[in-house]
């Protein structure tokens, strides 16, 4: 009997291994999703995968679809809202069933775009019309258009900062810390909120790479940098500011039990003064202020406290990009949706975000930036594929919370280690990974 079980087990193993050989079979490459000349002639049902569960639940997306149907009457748009968007869609990418239009998951490496998505046209043609095309540009072809863009900075409660006696935006990290100290001393508010427990808010700092040196290429330069955390570099300044804020006890008392949803109400009511977040957060905080019966105009947005030649800089970076699945049966309809959504839906205005179409106006939320002469730079994405490869190989995770969580823990004194040693270690891992990825 024992021998028989072994034989069965071996058989199973062999079948399983043969089965696995089929995993990730090569998909057709290089198909294009061309825009139709006559919207009335496009027909079919398309499924849009989206991470915006809130907008699907409250019917906003349906309204967009109805608007879309005025131009494309024969297309039916269905939405599939996914809460754990990244995790779920990443796995579905191994099948052929990942909707007709989807947000490109971050896990997909840039070089694989052509095997998953239909091309939307040449970069030369599209970059004049749209921002952020560089992010999905593979060999001169664009594979996705950003839904919206965001500027980096700090959401703050103007009333609280005013009460603390600070009305002008701080121009250096030291001034920012002094401002937080004033808030702590003169108001009852928590000067700065890390949102440590919910993790992803900590990644906001990474979106600010370039806003210190006022350099749109700052992110690209990481690909060739041996020490991204060297003294004076963008990452060094951004992460040191976080460290100092926490170290000088200017952040919430117990970061391990923070709550993102609650934090919106707290900043709206002036119990929190400042949070580092993208400009997309402004409208959410203003909505929270309305709910709390407070003045939404108290919610402000300030640039990163650093100036170059007397001017603030903010980096515009793309949100999720919409792409057409290469397996879609109605590529023209899917393309029609993306074009319409990016250009005509008014989504960016409604969300208070930077529109992807260059012709679109900046949202009202960024009016103070325009008025105060903040330089808005569109982040260059020429080398983002390499930067991501190095980042993953080094297991640092610039856009992931873990390394900043450790930084906050060290600043609070619950994990040992000095900031200098930590930066040196990060630099070492980065440069080793850079060598490794360049070699392979």
């Amino acid at each position: 009997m024992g021998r028989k079980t072994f034989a069965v087990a071996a058989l199973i193993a062999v079948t399983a291994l043969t089965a696995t050989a089929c995993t990730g079979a090569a998909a057709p490459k290089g198909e294009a999703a061309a825009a139709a000349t006559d919207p009335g002639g496009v027909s079919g049902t398309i499924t849009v995968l989206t991470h915006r569960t809130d907008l699907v639940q409250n019917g906003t997306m349906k309204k967009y679809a109805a608007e879309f149907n005025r131009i494309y009457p024969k297309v039916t748009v269905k939405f599939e809202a996914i809460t754990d968007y990244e995790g779920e869609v990443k796995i579905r990418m191994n099948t052929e069933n990942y909707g007709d239009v989807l947000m490109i998951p971050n896990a997909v490496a840039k070089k694989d775009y052509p095997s998953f998505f239909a091309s939307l046209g040449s970069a030369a043609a599209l970059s004049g019309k749209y921002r952020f095309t560089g992010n999905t540009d593979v060999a001169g072809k664009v594979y996705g258009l950003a839904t919206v863009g965001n500027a980096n900075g700090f959401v703050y409660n103007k009333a609280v900062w005013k009460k603390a006696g600070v009305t002008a935006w701080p121009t250096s990290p030291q001034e920012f810390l002094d401002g937080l100290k004033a808030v702590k001393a003169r108001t009852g508010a928590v000067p700065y909120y890390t949102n440590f427990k919910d993790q992803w808010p900590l990644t906001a700092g990474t979106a600010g790479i370039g806003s210190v040196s006022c350099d749109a290429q700052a992110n690209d330069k990481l690909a060739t940098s041996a020490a991204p955390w060297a003294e004076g570099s963008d990452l060094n300044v951004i992460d040191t500011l976080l460290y100092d804020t926490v170290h000088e006890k200017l952040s919430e008392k117990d970061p391990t039990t923070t709550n993102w949803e609650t934090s919106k109400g707290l900043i709206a009511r002036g119990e929190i003064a400042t949070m580092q977040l993208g400009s997309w957060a402004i409208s959410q905080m203003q909505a929270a202020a309305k709910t709390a019966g407070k003045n939404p105009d108290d919610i402000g947005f300030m640039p990163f406290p650093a100036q170059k030649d007397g001017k603030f800089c903010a980096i515009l970076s793309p949100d999720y990009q919409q792409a057409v699945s290469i397996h879609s049966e109605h590529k023209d309809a899917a393309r029609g949706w993306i074009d319409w959504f990016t250009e005509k839906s008014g989504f960016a205005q409604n969300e208070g975000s930077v529109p992807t179409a260059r012709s679109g106006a900046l949202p009202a939320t960024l009016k103070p930036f325009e008025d105060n002469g903040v330089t808005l730079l569109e982040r260059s994405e020429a080398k983002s594929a390499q930067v991501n490869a190095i980042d993953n190989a080094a297991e640092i995770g610039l856009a992931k919370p873990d390394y900043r969580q450790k930084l906050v823990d060290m600043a609070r004194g619950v994990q040992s280690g000095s900031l200098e040693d930590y930066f040196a270690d990060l630099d070492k891992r980065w440069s080793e990974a850079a060598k490794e990825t360049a070699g392979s």
Partner: protein
Amino acid sequence: MTHTTHTPTTGVGKENPAARPAGGRARRAAKRRSRPPGRGPLSRVTPWLFLLAPLALLITFTYVPVANMVYYSFTDWDGVSPEIHLVGAGNYSELFTRPELFRVFFVSFYYLAASAVQIVIALYFATVLSFNLRLRNLFKGILFFPYLINGVAIGFVFLYFFQDGGTLDSVLSWFGAGSDHAWLGDPTSANVSLAGVSVWRFTGLNFVLFLGAIQSIPGELYEAAQLDGATRWHQFRYLIAPSIRPVISLSVILAVSGSLSVFEIPYIMTGGATGTTTFVIQTVKLAFQFNKTGLASAAAVVLLLIILLVTWIQRRLVPDGKVDLV
């Protein structure tokens, strides 16, 4: 062992005279069937036909995924890309040349210590509640209840429990022991708190296992022990403990493998921050944050081997002897 205690019918029917002939008939029938099955190939195929459905499910949902994982562990797959390259034992050599990947096993000691506490508590309550006690079914229910709750829900409940000014703090302050302690704030406190949650959650399971084993001890043995003047403690020491030894040893194996592969509670409550990362959390992060599916699969295979090894050692040290009370 006497014949009476081993009738195949349930304990309830033990003294029922009508149950006996029925049991006897069943046994005779079984004897007839156990003879080598009759001629013809069909009869030999029959058992396999019955097994077809469960085997198909077992292979599809257990063996194929495991084989897949083993296969991925020899590749550099990132989890999405259509390109997969075999890298031989590269992932394994990377794993074993990076000692920091194994340092997270220290966190398991918190959970191992907690499991010991958990087994003792479960054993205590199982023994006490196996005697006749007022409201004993209510207490059984209360003890088992936490095990029925979904792990994610428990994570959220205890997040509020440990929050600054949360349930724990307010309960403590009623007794004048209110403190400003951030329960999940530093590694030691966080790990102890999380291990405490896991005790709360899994005591019920151990308790039910123990209780079942204890209740299968024939009642006459207690009577005999009482006649001989044995106290409750003696009854536990010489009667209950030896007869439920297989279940205790099973619980210990489950506890060890469980504490090596803790995941749900720390992942939901702290996400592995502040020194609470366990080996499985680290593996998940490798696979889903850094897209190193190959390396993560290798780590999972290694964890499986470690657990098998620990279990094997344990079985060698404490062999599962036959229980013989009489």
